[in-house]
């Protein structure tokens, strides 16, 4: 599958007035994913396609509620038409430091996504993103699964995802988590 590559970059247009769209590139700059979000949609519904033609949907991410402090998003593999897991934002913790839980298809936690350090997270909130974010995905046993690094660029939002070799976490969940961070967290700034 497209998102099973170990390294990819999510590039989102910052200057889009309504809605949002982003591309996912592999290291050779080939597009492996595209998503265009509608503006004014009450309930978040992110569809990721294999390319800009939108002929092949690869993943869908849907919010369970219209507004939810600890929002949960179900991640569905569109080709298999099967839910592969979910991501749940930890509302209170995220006030200081962005934190998410990655859940399996039965809603059991399998990993967590956290901003790199509490101090940097606080500085970012005061300095308005002058320090680019870095997130780590760790399994429930504490093992590093992936690193999500946002690049410093005021015009284009770019996040590079680097999966650790030999990790056990479903790469589709890593991809879904990274897409959510790119689509949701960035918009809240």
């Amino acid at each position, binding site marked *: 599958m497209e998102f099973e590559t170990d390294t990819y970059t999510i590039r989102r247009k910052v200057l889009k007035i309504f809605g949002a769209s982003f591309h996912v590139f592999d290291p050779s700059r080939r597009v492996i994913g595209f998503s265009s979000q509608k503006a004014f949609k*009450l*309930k978040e519904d992110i569809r990721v396609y294999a390319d800009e033609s939108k002929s092949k949907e690869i993943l869908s991410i849907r919010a*369970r509620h*219209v507004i939810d402090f600890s929002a949960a998003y*179900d991640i569905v593999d569109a080709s298999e038409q099967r839910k592969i897991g979910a991501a749940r934002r930890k509302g209170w913790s995220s006030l200081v430091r962005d934190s998410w839980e990655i859940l399996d298809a039965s*809603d059991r936690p399998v990993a967590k996504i956290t901003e790199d350090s509490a101090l940097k997270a606080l500085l970012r909130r005061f300095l308005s993103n002058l320090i680019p974010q870095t997130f780590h995905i760790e399994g429930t046993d504490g093992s590093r699964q992936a690193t999500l690094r946002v690049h410093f660029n005021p015009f284009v939002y770019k996040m590079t995802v680097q999966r650790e070799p030999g990790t056990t976490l479903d790469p589709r969940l890593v991809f879904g988590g990274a897409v959510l961070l790119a689509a949701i967290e960035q918009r809240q700034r």
Partner: protein
Amino acid sequence: MSVEVSCGCGAVFDANDRLAGGVTNCPSCGRAVDVPGLRDPAWRAIQALALVAVAGVGAVAYARGGVGAAAIAILIAGAALWLISRAL
């Protein structure tokens, strides 16, 4: 608490209410199926506000043009709301 879910394959099963409004896999065919939403408080608040807005439009129209104007205004505002809710 649980929510009753009906899958396209014909299976009917209970899902945890934590999943309400989301997606779960059908235990019978394994495909992803939508779980009906419970009382989403935010959505309920938006619906209540919309109804108040329609009533307000009707009241203003009644004050300016009488019963006929109020009926037409409520009809138009209600139709607009219905269209918006379908689009969402």
